[in-house]
């Protein structure tokens, strides 16, 4: 589930363009981003944005794995998220056949793997 400061209309265009199917949430005033202390002040074109971060939340709402990158060019790879999920749940998530492109194909699969029922 993605979160950014973009308004829903912008995200809608983005999803139509890319074909991504997972959930994109809009936090235009960065309220949730601020509550998670992931605010990157004045780093966007028009103000505050989120710093890149990935958090894996278990069914009780507890953070079980997270990745706060040190460079915004470097994000968690889907394989890393799936591996963490496998280790935490003690079983294999669905075998994904990742395409090399991180964001286009792999993330939706990693979301679907992570949101499987336990």
């Amino acid at each position: 589930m993605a979160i950014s400061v973009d308004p829903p209309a912008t995200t809608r265009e983005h999803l139509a363009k890319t074909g991504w199917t997972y959930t994109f949430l809009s936090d235009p005033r960065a309220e949730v981003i601020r509550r998670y202390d992931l605010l990157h002040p004045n780093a966007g074109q028009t103000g505050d944005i989120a710093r890149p971060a990935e958090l894996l939340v278990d069914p009780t709402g507890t953070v079980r794995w997270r990745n706060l990158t040190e460079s915004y060019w470097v994000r968690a790879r889907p394989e890393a998220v799936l591996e963490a999920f496998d280790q935490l749940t003690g079983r294999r998530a669905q075998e994904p056949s990742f395409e090399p492109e991180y964001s286009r194909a792999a993330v939706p699969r990693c979301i679907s793997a992570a949101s499987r029922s336990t």
Partner: protein
Amino acid sequence: MTRRRNFLPLAGFLICVAAFLAYPLVFARYPVTRDVPWASWLLFVLGLALVAAGLLRAFRRPETFRGRIMGPILGVLSLAVVGFFFLVTEVYSRQLPASAGAPQIGQKAPDFTLPDSQGRPVRLSGLLGAPAGGAAGSGAPGSWVLLVFYRGYW
């Protein structure tokens, strides 16, 4: 005797510019060339080597090759491109907030409700499975959620 044109500094400079542009346009799309930009640096080394070779022959054999004015200019420009690439990929991109207050492993992820791309409100606790088995909201019991925060500006 007319001196030969010395194309090496220009070729090296163009390779440096191409290497710079290739990172956001191509290499950053693939984790293997994005996380460690080795492909970019390989191209930069090639570009700078061509510039150096061009400068060497311009100054060592000035009776044969031209380029004693344009060569150094292109050399400085090439170094500037390489330096700017270093700043963008290794310095600016690492100037991220410490986020010391971000939820740690073992802590609860603060609940929230935000609109999705269709404007429908989505609540985190509604997606997670209830521990007792009774599903809250639309989520199936025992569901995990991966939260991915993006810089945005799609």
